[in-house]
């Protein structure tokens, strides 16, 4: 087992990250510590094996299409933002128009107007309340990735 105090030195020695003085000190330790000498040899072997691994080069067409794919995401992102903002704005506008038309419509009775407005108002309050609750809990849910 590597001496606890020399673990860092061993890694830095292996990766050529020690200065000359530190290197000499660690080599001095190695001369007397069989465990560290053995572990160093094993880590060196592991390093050689790991260094030999390289990744497969993707085909040229992957790089040719790469920016296009990123751009598509950007374009769609902008599209979704515009769509969402416009949909919300139109819904709000439509809601106000509906309320206004109910209020000014002379053919509707007062009780019916109050009922329709209460229905609309209640629907809006419920929608906002549920939405707010969902957003609040979703943003604080540590287990949202866990399947139920």
């Amino acid at each position, binding site marked *: 087992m590597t001496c606890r105090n020399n673990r860092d030195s061993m890694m830095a020695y292996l990766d050529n990250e020690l200065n000359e003085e530190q290197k000499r000190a660690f080599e001095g330790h190695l001369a007397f510590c069989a465990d560290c000498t053995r572990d160093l040899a094993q880590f060196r072997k592991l390093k050689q094996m790991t260094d*030999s691994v390289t*990744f497969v080069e993707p085909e040229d067409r992957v790089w040719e299409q790469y920016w296009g*794919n990123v751009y598509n995401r950007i374009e769609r992102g902008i599209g979704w933002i515009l769509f969402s903002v416009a949909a919300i704005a139109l819904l709000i506008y439509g809601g106000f128009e509906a309320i206004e038309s109910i209020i000014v419509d002379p053919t509707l009775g007062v009780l019916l107007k109050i009922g329709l407005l209460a229905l609309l108002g209640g629907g809006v309050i419920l929608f906002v309340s549920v939405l707010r609750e969902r957003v609040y809990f979703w943003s604080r849910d540590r287990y949202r990735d866990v399947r139920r």
Partner: protein
Amino acid sequence: MGGMGRDNSAALWDGSADAPAGVGDSGSGVGPREAFELIVKRHMKDAYLIALGLVGNREDALELSQEAFFRAYQHYDTLHSKGKFFPWFYQILRNLCFSHLRKRRVRRAGSLDDTQLGCPEPEGRDSFEPDAIAERNEAKDRIWKAMGRLDDKHREVILLRHFRNLSYDEMARVLFCNRGTVTSRLFYARQQLKEILDEERGAPIAPREPGEPTKGGQTS
């Protein structure tokens, strides 16, 4: 098929590779989209290779690296020093990859439950399959698969050190920790890697002279 991904320039990580001229620079005559296109083309290979090292799958690596560029574009205004794009981008990419790995583990745990209930396990492209590595042999396959079993943060230091050739100081800057933490994390990562390989082989890694044959008959 040739391999890639071992070369790394320090300039990439300290940000000096990201020439600010024309990138987010209104006086340069280059629009923001064209400027970002230049950035993507400059860094796409590094982004892909880092994602591949973290998630171990070529399709996911491509998807995640592209998604990271998309998110970087969305938040590009918040990057104060435009010349230091890549270290900033790396944080987005690694967070995306780690989040992806968490979800993958949850899915896998769920599919194991389903399997126990009699449902078939879904097809998954979710392991460190050796087809991602070049000039394959038994030893490289084993290392790659063992990397897939490391903790995310341990895999990350192995990737940065062995596959991206970062120095300890560069790693400390990128990981927002001190040099001692980097060294210690590297020790535990290598120790864990060694134990996984030992466990698979049933014997510890013995130091071997160059040219000595391995179990599979290959020589180093």
